[in-house]
């Protein structure tokens, strides 16, 4: 693909000048990350695919007016967060079964990954909101401190402090559980 080595900013600029393929590359580059975050943020994890799809549709409509005040992924991340919170406010049709991720007919490898997402959600659900986001971004998504600070809209020192507190809580939690 022609845009594989392009940065996100270059992709958005190409898309703004009418290159639809650039948007395609942007979707393929970030869809996994956004999907994983949605699976942890959403109460109803089965709607993570819908949330991710909604984010990219909003991006398709909104990125032509993007002004590069932040990184494109920051825009996608915050939109995903907003979409997930909107979805969490909506009532669910029916409760999910406990093992819905493994009972949907997906293969074992995929089922194990989905199970891991559920375990991460259970692990971070005890943390306050900002500590949970720091843990997700720094530990599980492997973002740098600077990148995490930009995504969360805070200073790097705040990220470090939040992460330190969260680590202590998680360590206590893992020590208590068998």
């Amino acid at each position, binding site marked *: 693909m022609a845009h594989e080595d392009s940065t996100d900013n270059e992709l958005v600029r190409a898309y703004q000048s009418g290159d639809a393929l650039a948007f395609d590359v942007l979707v393929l580059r970030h869809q996994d990350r956004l*999907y994983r975050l949605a699976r942890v943020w959403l109460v109803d994890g089965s709607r993570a695919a819908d949330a*991710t799809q909604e984010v990219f*549709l909003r991006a*398709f409509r909104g990125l032509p007016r993007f002004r590069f005040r932040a990184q494109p992924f920051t825009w996608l991340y915050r939109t995903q967060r907003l979409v997930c919170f909107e979805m969490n406010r909506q009532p669910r049709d029916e409760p999910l079964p406990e093992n819905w991720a493994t009972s949907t007919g997906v293969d074992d*490898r995929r089922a*194990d*990954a989905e199970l891991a997402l559920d375990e*991460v959600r259970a692990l971070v659900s005890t943390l306050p909101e900002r500590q949970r986001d720091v843990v997700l971004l720094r530990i599980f998504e492997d973002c740098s401190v600077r990148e995490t600070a930009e995504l969360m809209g805070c200073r790097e020192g705040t990220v470090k402090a939040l992460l330190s507190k969260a680590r202590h809580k998680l360590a206590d*939690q893992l020590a208590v559980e068998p």
Partner: protein
Amino acid sequence: MPDIDTLQHRYRKASAPDDIHAAIQRELADGATARARWPWFAVGFSAALALVVIVPLLKSPPPSGVPSMLEVARSLPNRPIGSVPSISRVGMPTQPRLPTRPSTPPENDNAAPLTPADNSGTTALPRPNTKEKTA
């Protein structure tokens, strides 16, 4: 609960379902089709409007012996544009305008005239003759 490193490793293996990308492509294609289709809707709508409304209006003769707009247009083929009178005025019967108000004011001796100092625009009421009563 497994330790964080193992969990981290398994977490990163999770990927979005394949149908997300396909669904986005499908939505975008539908949107593009709709956008490509709307000018044809506009052209079709304009043509239908012309057929249903404008053509019968041009063809129908006016009821009171006034020549239709088509007849007027045919009678003025070679005249320069500036000299052609407005089509809406051609053949219209000229009727005398009805007077909207009588030319002479009605005779009303009882109406009190406006006083020069009265700026409110209302007519001044005649003052009651109190002297006669007291006398």
